[in-house]
């Protein structure tokens, strides 16, 4: 396919796509990978910890060995490779599904506000302002605290994050829609008899792709960090389920004694965000016919 080939001709995109792809594969095949390593994320290994030094793993770099590929967790001795691999499931799953929901709500509300009448616009815009102005962290904690314990936490997290943070997307979409709808090609479509739905789908939505994708690349990291924050505060995923955010926050107490424990989730988080940013940028460039070829 020519579109794919054009995408992979962009070296930055190719790098990002490969890294992002590996991350997703890791998340999907987490059980298989841990089995391969012969470990699981919840077994304690007290014999690997130096109790004289407060539970720091014995050995170099956080106890890296042939058995524990990335070392073990200080304090508990759980296998870090297994926890990182399972953590990818939660972190990526929550952040990506929250992003999908956010874009759905945000673009929907934004286009409706931009194309709708004066009153629809006013109502939807004020609603957007309201969600943006609300202290979302407090609300998230409250929401997550009242939900029954047996509901699936990652899904719940994604929904809560999406419901609280679609405002930015909606605003950007509305502004862009307002500017796009004054273009003559929208008028041309209307003259040939296209109704509002058709105009939105055929003329407005393609023009929204670039700004929305760029924004999405910024929202994804913030989703991962929100998940991390909520897990840190005890309202996210529940222990012993691992997530990168949770690992990062528990690492804050260990970073002097066991720096490896900080670098692992931190580095992974950084790498993933960079990869998705490169992917979004590449896609944005390729879907814009004006930018996809060499300068005129």
């Amino acid at each position, binding site marked *: 396919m020519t579109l794919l080939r054009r995408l992979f001709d962009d070296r930055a995109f190719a790098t990002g796509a490969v890294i992002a792809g590996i991350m997703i594969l890791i998340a999907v095949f987490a059980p298989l990978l841990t089995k391969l390593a012969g470990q699981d994320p919840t077994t304690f290994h007290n014999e690997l910890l130096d109790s004289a030094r407060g539970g720091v793993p014995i050995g170099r770099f956080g106890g890296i060995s042939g058995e524990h590929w990335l070392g073990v967790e200080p304090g508990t001795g759980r296998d870090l490779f297994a926890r990182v691999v399972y953590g990818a499931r939660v972190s990526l799953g929550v952040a990506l599904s929250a992003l999908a929901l956010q874009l759905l709500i945000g673009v929907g509300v934004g286009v409706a506000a931009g194309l709708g009448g004066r009153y629809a616009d006013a109502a939807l815009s004020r609603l957007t302002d309201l969600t943006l102005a609300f202290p979302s962290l407090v609300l998230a904690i409250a929401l997550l605290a009242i939900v029954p314990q047996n509901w699936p936490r990652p899904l719940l997290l994604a929904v809560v994050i999406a419901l609280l943070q679609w405002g930015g997307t909606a605003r950007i979409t509305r502004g862009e829609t307002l500017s796009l709808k004054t*273009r*003559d*090609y929208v*008028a*041309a*479509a*209307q*003259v*040939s*008899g*296209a109704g509002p739905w*058709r105009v939105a789908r*055929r*003329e407005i939505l*393609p*023009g929204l*792709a670039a700004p929305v994708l760029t924004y999405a690349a910024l929202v994804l990291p913030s989703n991962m960090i929100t998940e991390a924050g909520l897990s840190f505060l005890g309202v996210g995923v529940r222990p012993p389920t691992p997530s990168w955010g949770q690992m990062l926050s528990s690492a804050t107490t260990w970073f002097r004694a066991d720096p490896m424990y900080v670098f692992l989730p931190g580095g992974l988080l950084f790498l993933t965000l960079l990869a998705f940013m490169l992917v979004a940028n590449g896609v944005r460039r390729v*879907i*814009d*016919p*004006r930018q996809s070829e060499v300068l*005129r």
Partner: protein
Amino acid sequence: MTLLSVRDLCITFGDTPAVDGLSFDLEPGGALGIVGESGSGKSATALALLGLHTRATIDGTIAFDGLDITKATDDRLRAIRGAGIAMVFQEPLTALSPFHRVGDQIAEVYRLHTGASKKEARARAIEVLAQVHIPDPERRADAYPHQFSGGMRQRALIAMALSCRPRLIVADEPTTALDVTVQAQILDLLDEVRTTTGTALLLISHDLGVVAGATDDVIVMRAGVAVESGPTDQVLVTPREPYTRELLAASPQPSAARPISSPPLLRVAEVRKHFPQTRRRGLRRLEPVKAVDGITLDVRAGETLGIVGESGTGKTTLARMMVGLIPPTSGSITFDGVPITRRRGRSVQMVFQDPLSSLNPRRTIGESIADPLRLQGMTAPRIKVEELLVRVGLSRSLYSRYPHQLSGGMRQRVGIARALAPDPRLIVCDEPVSSLDVTTQAQVLALLEDIRRERGLTMVFVTHDLAVLRQIADRVAVLHSGRVVELGDVAQVWEQPQHAYTKELLAAVPVADPVEARRRRAERRSVAR
């Protein structure tokens, strides 16, 4: 002693030559015109005169007052710009800073070059503003650019150019963004400035009519090469080169109007469109803007009705109401007896002014033309789209191209193909050729006329250009502040204009005949006095 002497000027951007071996001389106080279509290298030449190119390779010499500009240091260039050679740009709104008062901007330039005190500079600013006939210059010097009309802004720019008493003014398309009557005033002003101050003028334009009355000599450029040069009276009257002849022939020619007395197809009755002002002053609501203020006219089946007016006369609003894009505040528009809003998408189509913004940049042109066909229930419109492409003089293979890959003329052909797709009976064209070069304009006009005849279409042609109307329209309606001030057969309106505004418009039309252009200027001057 020549003031400006250009020898073998070559300007190259990367591998693309913009100007290739241009030579000319300009005497002090002389006026030289450079005429050419887009891409002819005329603007690149203007920028080179001021040493404003940053990424171009420049060969040859540009001697201004004995100094070679191509080799001058940045410091010398800065001293020359403004004081020796001043530039008047095309778009007066972007050439002025929106955050500073007009008088301050002129004073700033003057102080920079002369080191005068603030007081002296302000006095000079007021003096030059008076020289370009800004009424009440002392008060208007404190105005911001947005408080000026387009013509006043261009006057202010000329005043700024004059402030340091330059020896040469380079005017690059100084009137392209302006209405015809204002264009005539600005050209008259440039001519007056030249004779009263002795400043030489280099006038660059795509419009032969603009250059005809304002210059002594003219250079016709094409693809970076001077095709023909010589005295204006000779080049524009008895051209030697075929390209010059082609250019002259491309300017719209009057054609015989057809007498049409068929029943009306589109009836516009007492139509008004008022736009409420959202900004309030105090507690009182502002008066609404009356874009269209009580227009009644019929478009007869089979005719071409021209609607002419300057910017702000409501002609675009009227055109958009005619196709049902915006509803009138009051009054009715009926097509074949049915209100227009209910007929939308079938029998009335529109061709837009800017073909780039009227085509979705993210969709192929084939898709854009196919859309109206799909709306009519056609499932495989590709064959019909390709037929339409061929009909408007484009190749079938352009189906999968994007708008930015096409030239302006080709884009407008696509716009016409899209309007034709649903087999309309009436096409409303809103300034369809005003952004095109003169030869392309002639081709597109011929195409429109061809298609109109072939399909028996009725056409409404909205434009600011009277010469174009004279060629294409059967009847003409002259619009002035939202009203029709004159409506009649083209020939009759031309020969015996009744309304004062029509007379003013007709007098301002630029003509490519230098003698006639000078006669009209003299006439305008005597009227002004």
